[in-house]
């Protein structure tokens, strides 16, 4: 494979089959998922352990930190399979976001402890970053860090924090002199109040209050760049989760059109419906190409922030399109809790609002659109060493 290609190698294909098999057993049908998400913590601890046993929870971490040393493409493969069955386990939240930040700025000791714990399945780490009244920022405003002798204390509120009530340890962004710092807060820390609730997609989020809560700094100084980069990596991973979910939503819809009868014929006899399904396929494949490319940019060491914005925009537009049409083409059953497809739309909607929606990404891209004449996805700034200098 000496030139550009979008194909998985045989190890990546094996990984995909293994993850698919594991998750197909855990979530064989939507009833199983409904049962799991009804009870706290909103996911299946046994499935989490199995993910750890397969090595998936330490996938991107360095081997000396207890991980597998795999790359973003492997993470993308897992995320897509999670999306395919709407597995509610907080893989991206723990491994890509919280784990990614610890890997990026933690000390060797912190990495060994936290990343090792994540990889073993014994530590759920969660990035507590969103704040009421702000949106999709790389900086903190509502939680302040105060130095206190050798340690720190945090005060303020984070919400919504995905799986925030279940987390064993929180990675918290907080205002420090000169920017935004990153801190570790243990789940049983003094002055930490967590109020969890169910979200519309079956997962959990929490209101997290810090009241002079003791914390340990991950690194000193402003961490905005590290946060921006890790958020970009998570946006790409969520993009792959969304691709998996859209793939199932489209398959489910096509199957329904072939079997559901009205006016004495199956629905696929109505061109008004099949053309709309064809448009869903177009949206999905364009988004899939962009998401795969963004993972390759990340792996190659290119401009991951810009690539993530491009993937976010394309995936967001596709998610809205496919999510809404999947329900409409089903009719009334699509909005029932008993049937699967509405849950896919709900999860796609959640993903869209976790780290930035399409319009948000578009505004960022619009801000730089005048800086280049044309875009070469195989050249600068996306592929280091690639591309021909622009004419």
């Amino acid at each position, binding site marked *: *494979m*000496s*030139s*550009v*290609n*979008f*194909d*998985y*190698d045989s190890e*990546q294909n094996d990984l995909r089959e293994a993850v698919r098999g594991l998750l197909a057993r855990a979530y064989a049908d939507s009833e199983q998922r409904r049962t799991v998400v009804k009870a706290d913590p909103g996911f299946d601890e046994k499935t989490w352990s199995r993910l750890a046993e397969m090595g998936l929870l330490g996938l991107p971490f360095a081997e000396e930190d207890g991980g597998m040393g795999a790359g973003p*493409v492997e993470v993308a493969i897992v995320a897509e399979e999670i999306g395919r069955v709407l597995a509610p386990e907080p893989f991206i939240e723990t491994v890509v976001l919280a784990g990614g930040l610890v890997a990026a700025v933690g000390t060797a000791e912190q990495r060994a402890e936290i990343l090792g714990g994540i990889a073993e399945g014994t530590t759920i780490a969660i990035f507590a970053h969103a704040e009421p009244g702000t949106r999709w920022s790389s900086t903190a405003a509502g939680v302040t860090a105060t130095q206190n002798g050798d340690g720190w204390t945090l005060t303020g509120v984070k919400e919504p924090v995905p799986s925030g009530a279940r987390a064993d340890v929180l990675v918290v962004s907080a205002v420090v002199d000169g920017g935004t710092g990153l801190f570790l807060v243990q789940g049983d820390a003094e002055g930490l109040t967590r109020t969890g609730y169910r979200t519309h997609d079956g997962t959990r989020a929490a209101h997290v209050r810090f009241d002079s809560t003791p914390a340990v700094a991950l690194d000193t100084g402003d961490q905005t760049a590290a946060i921006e980069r890790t958020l970009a990596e998570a946006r790409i991973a969520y993009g792959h989760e969304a691709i998996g979910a859209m793939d199932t939503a*489209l398959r489910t819809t*096509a199957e329904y*059109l*072939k079997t559901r009868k009205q006016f004495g014929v199956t629905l*696929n006899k109505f*061109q008004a419906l*099949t*053309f709309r*399904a*064809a*448009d869903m*396929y*177009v949206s999905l*494949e*364009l*988004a899939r*190409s*962009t998401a*795969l*490319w963004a*993972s*390759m*940019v990340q*792996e*190659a060491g*290119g401009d991951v922030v810009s690539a993530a914005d*491009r993937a976010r*925009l*394309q995936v967001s537009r596709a998610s809205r399109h496919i999510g809404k049409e999947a329900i409409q083409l089903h009719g009334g059953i699509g909005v029932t809790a008993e049937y699967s497809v509405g849950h896919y739309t709900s999860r796609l909607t959640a993903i869209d609002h976790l780290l930035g929606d399409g319009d948000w990404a*578009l*505004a960022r*891209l*619009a*801000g730089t*659109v*005048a800086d280049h*004449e*044309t*875009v070469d*996805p*195989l050249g600068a700034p*996306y*592929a280091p*060493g*690639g*591309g*021909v200098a622009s*004419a």
Partner: protein
Amino acid sequence: MRLQLSPELEAFREEMRTFFTTQVPQEIRDTVAAHRHVSKEQYVETQRVLNAAGLAVPHWPIEWGGRDWTPLQRHIWREEMQLANVPEPLAFNTSMIGPVLAAFGNREQKERFLAKTANLDIWWCQGFSEPDAGSDLASLRTTAVRDGDDWVVNGQKTWTTLGQHADWIFCLVRTDPTAEKKQRGISLLVFPMDSPGVTLRPIELVDGGFEVNEVFFEDVRVPAENLIGEENRGWDYAKFLLGNERVGIARIGSTKRMLAQAKEHAREITVDGRSLAEDPHMAARIAEVENELVALELTALRVVANSADGKPHPASSVLKLRGSELQQAATELLLDIAGPLSLASFADDGSDIPDWARVTTPHYLNYRKVSIYGGSNEVQRTIIAGSILGL
């Protein structure tokens, strides 16, 4: 998976870029860049320059001037040609009748036509559509009846693009009106446009241009040796021809050029003391089309770089559909950037309105064709729904 081109392909890309930007006359490339009418002489000159360098028909069999390139090389060749504003080799010659002759013609026909077809010594036009056979091409009614050593052709073709320049026509005719399936009784004939009984009537288009024609046949005598392939197998050849180079029809390089022009011209228009390029809504519109074009380019790369056993990649069906939509979106963008200037379509000397703005409306109106020709977008949706989604 790999993001970058191989060093060999980077060099190939550079070689193409250098050739197209230095060997094709600037005046011709300026005509294409300005969306002005490309003359017959300009088409012929360009194709001969390309052919002399072995760049007119690289996708043909090597024996007849082909290069044995990979699909990815052909993609790069085509994209670089479009980025350099080079008029592409005449599709009727190089993508349509040439490959059909090479695959199904007899030795004598190949020797008679192929070299001249590659060099545009013969200008071919297409006799496919008829007034009552558009998307439903197999309903065509033009007949050819055997009389001694000749076929006698009667009927009418339409939408014959650039027929006014053509020396020869390749024509689908009904040779067996009794065939059970209407696809079975069709044959492919070729004959000179100056044959007695051939009449050409130009069709003026809504943009004021003349690029398509009606062609009438009244007792046109065509020697039997001008039958291509087997009698009554013409439908197979037509399908082969129309399925050829589905990838090239996305015209990504050409749309990239239009977007670059849109950015440039948006800077030249002032709205309330501010450049139109700084208007956030306009910047977002450009950025969104640009991102969709990135997604399309990546999808095209995904298709051409796919190593799978020669079978068409399912995602290839989105290329024509989305490619035509984005070409149209780019012409619309240029039109809206011109705004009131776009009214001066036919202004001549004595107008202060720049040339680029004058052509925006004719260009926009003319480009409505791209979602109609080459299998309308509704036909593409039918293909996606049927052969990919199984609906």
